[in-house]
Structure formats: C-alpha cells, structure tokens
C-alpha cells in the first residue's frame, strides 16, 4: 500500500517531465525557433547594449524631465493600487468563506477576481484606449483593473486563512456582522493585506512603465520618445531610473513589512 503511493508519485513525476519535454520540443518545432541562434543572439544583444545603451553626460541633462515623468508614474501607480485595494477589500469580505453573507457572493467575487486577473494588462490598456484614447486615465484604469483582480483574490485567501477562528468566537458572543468584521477580521488580516498592497505597488510601478508606453503617459512615454529618436543614452537613463525606483520602493516596503508584522 505504502510502496504503491511512492511508485505512483514517481510515475506522476516521470509523466510530468515527459509532457514538459514534449511540449517544449513541440513548440520549438512548430515555431521553427532556432535554439542555437537564440542563445548566440543573447550574447550579441549584450555586446550591443554595452556599447550603445548607457547614459552619457549629455543625457544627464534630461534627468529633470525624466524625474517629473517618473513622479507622475509612481503617483499613478500608488493611486491605482490604493483605490483598487479599497474595492478589493470590500469584495473579499463579501466573498470570503468565513465572512460572506451568502455562498453565491463567493462565486461572484471569485468570478470578478479571475476575470480581471486573467485579462492581460496590455489588453486592458488597448481596450481602454478605445474608450479614453491616450490619456493618464487609461493607464490608471488599466492598472486599477489588473490590481483589482489580483488583490481581491489575495485578500480573499488572507481572510479565509486568518479569520475563521476569531469570527467564530465573536459571532458566538452575539456580535453583529459589522462589529465582527471591524473588530476581528480586519485587525487580524491587516498585516497581510498591507503586505499584498505593497507588493502590488511595486509591481504596478514596473507595469506602469509598459502601460505608459502604450498610453503615451509617464515614464514609459519618455522611454518611447528617446528610443524612437535613437537617443539610446537617454533611454538607458530612463531604464536605470526605473530600476532604482523599484529597488527603493522594494526597500521601503520591506521596512514597512518589518514594522507591521
């Protein structure tokens, strides 16, 4: 009986790797991807980058412009994330197993979450551009929708995990629904909720660059402009500024996490 379990586990692993190998080989054949060329071009790309894609003294004069755009992007990401977090938290409380009002709410909340999460960010940006054209509202909404899907799911799981015992305890004292939510569920899940929120801000600052490229706003737009004008030195400065910003945001949020956890 026990030996059987182990054999089955090994067989499952073998089948899994065989499938993975077939899938990889299949996709390479179908797309006629040249593996060897793929690897050698990585090297060539690196060499090109090292000789062209670095900031020079002249590009530093663009820094003030870039920083203005950066601020716009960072603020938009934070705004989109925090507005999404509010809606997500409401959805998550309504949809979590432990705090839902009725079980159909779970289905609805899960449905909303997976719909918004599974439409790629770029698709959101393209669709929204039809309605709002190239504007920062488009970027804001694209990030908002993506975050809404992700955060709803994350918050729902957090509440499921954290809330059950205390909800039971407070309900058994005769407490009504909202006091239970505000006195037990939210305080107990707050550290994880904040942690997810910070993670989302980090991700969104990164993604906002891409969205900005499409919607013509923020730092993504700066990159686009410099890149199309063959000003690779300025474009590389943009990339470096983004990387530094993301690192700083990550450091700040790690600090915040340490304090609240």
């Amino acid at each position, binding site marked *: 009986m026990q030996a059987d379990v182990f054999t089955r586990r090994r067989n499952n692993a073998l089948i899994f790797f065989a499938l993975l190998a077939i899938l990889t080989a299949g996709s390479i054949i179908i797309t006629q991807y040249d593996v060897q060329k793929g690897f050698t071009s990585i090297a060539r790309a690196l060499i090109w980058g090292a000789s062209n894609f670095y900031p020079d003294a002249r590009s530093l004069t663009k820094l003030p412009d870039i920083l203005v755009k950066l601020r716009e992007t960072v603020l938009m990401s934070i705004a989109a994330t925090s507005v999404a977090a509010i809606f997500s938290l409401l959805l998550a409380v309504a949809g979590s197993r432990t705090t839902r009002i009725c079980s159909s709410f779970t289905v609805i909340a899960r449905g909303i979450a997976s719909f918004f999460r599974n439409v790629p960010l770029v698709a959101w940006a393209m669709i929204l551009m039809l309605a709002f054209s190239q504007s920062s509202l488009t970027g804001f909404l694209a990030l908002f929708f993506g975050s809404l899907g992700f955060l709803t799911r994350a918050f729902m799981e957090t509440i499921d995990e954290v809330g059950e015992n205390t909800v039971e*305890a407070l309900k*058994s004292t*005769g*407490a009504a629904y909202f006091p239970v939510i505000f*006195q*037990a569920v939210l305080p107990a899940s707050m550290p994880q909720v904040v942690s997810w929120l910070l993670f989302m801000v980090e991700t969104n600052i990164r993604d906002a660059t891409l969205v900005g490229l499409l919607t013509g706003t923020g730092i993504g737009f700066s990159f686009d402009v410099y890149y199309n004008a063959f000003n690779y030195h300025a474009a590389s400065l943009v990339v470096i500024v983004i990387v530094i910003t993301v690192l700083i945001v990550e450091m700040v949020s790690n600090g915040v996490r340490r304090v609240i956890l």
Partner: protein
Amino acid sequence: MALLELKNVTKYYSGTTPALAGVSFSVNDGEFVSVIGSSGSGKSTLLRCINRMVEVTSGEISFGGVVVSRLGKKDLRKVRTKIGMIFQQFNLVDRMSVIENVLHGRLGYKSTLAGVLGRYTHEEKWQALKVIQMLGLEQQVYQRCDQLSGGQKQRVGIARALVQNPKMILCDEPIASLDPRSAKIIMDHLRSICTDIGMTLVISLHQVDMALKYTDRIIGLNRGVVVFDGTPGELTSQRSAEIYAREPKDVNINLGERNAS
C-alpha cells in the same frame, strides 16, 4: 429548573451517518457537565448546536425557557450574549491586546456603530479589568496576545466569556492544546467559576481523568449517541470502555471475557 434542555437533537452534516443522533439531556443551573467521547464522536458539534453556530437537522434545544432553534437572527444574537464560549485554539485576535480581546465579549450588547468603532463604556472597561485580575493576568493587561503563553491565552478566552455576563459557558476542549500544568490552572479556574459564581458550564474533554476529577456530571458520546449520563462515581471502567468502543461488538467481546473469567 433546567437551564438547558435538548430533546432528540439530530445533526447530519452530509451523507447518511449522523454526527449527532437523538441526543437528549438537560442541564441544571449551576451544574458543571462534561461531555466525553473519542475523536469524531460529536462533542464539538453538540456544543455548537447549543448556541446554533451549527444548525441542527431536527430536535429541539431550549435555553432558559426559550426554544433556540426557532429564533430569528436578532433574538438568536440576544441568546448568544447569554452563552459564553471558549475554544481549544483560544480564538483570540492575536494582534490585539489582552484588554481589547476581553472587551470583545461585550460586542453582543452594543449597537452596530459602537461595535464597529470599539467604543466601550467606563463600566465595561472596569468590569473587564476586574475579570482580568481575577484570572491573574493583571501584569499582561496591555500586552499583545501573540506574546502570551497558551495557558495565559486560554485565561483571556475565559475572561472574554465572563464579561459577557453569561448564564452558561460552553468549553470546547479548552485544555487539549495545553501542557499539564497550564491545563490544571485552567480547570481550577473553571471549577471555581462554577462553585464561587454559580455559573453553569458544559465542557467537552478528551481526558476522562479530568472529567472525573473536576465535573459534577459526565455525558458520554459514542458516534453521536449518548451512551452514558451520570455522576463520576457511576462511570465504571466498563461504562468507560463503552464510551470509547470503536464498534458496538467490541463492548460485547469485553463483556464476554469479563463474564467468562
């Protein structure tokens, strides 16, 4: 007069085997009753049916002359304020202080808004402090609950139940996750709550020796059926074997052996 009365209480979660099958007994004011039985015999289900954290399938439960199973939401909450509950896993909000957790016991008496905001009156705070002192936690009043030992956490659980001013307290395996020393402290507290305050207690226990030592009356459950209801003196080792028998025939075999010798 009986404070709590169960008539033919039956509970099916799903499927065809009942978690409780035709359970009937009554508990008098000021009694300390233990419910014992092996794992899965229905102890937790029984306690949760009393305050309707679990809905019964059929049968009738009355508490203080009120038929609990027919109450609407609001009246049910009113009855729950009169029934405290303590749990094996303590079910505290770990990130909040001892006093805040204890005051959660008052939420059932508050308006929704006051409950949401956690506004407590001066008398409530004073009462909470008095109960905390009675349980020997005066050094920990403002400490966060995740810094407490298991025994201390369970005392917070007892304090939260006591500030409800309940007529009865349900204890679901309150000492199952505690070391023997802390377990003794908790059982001593529960005993004195019964003897000194005259509180009615219904406690589920894994350990027969604790039931024998501390409680006035023992109810034995075997797969959802009450197979013993009597004083500790009446619980012979044969009756005890009956409570913990896996199959009905196990008991017969034991009896046969005993009769033969």
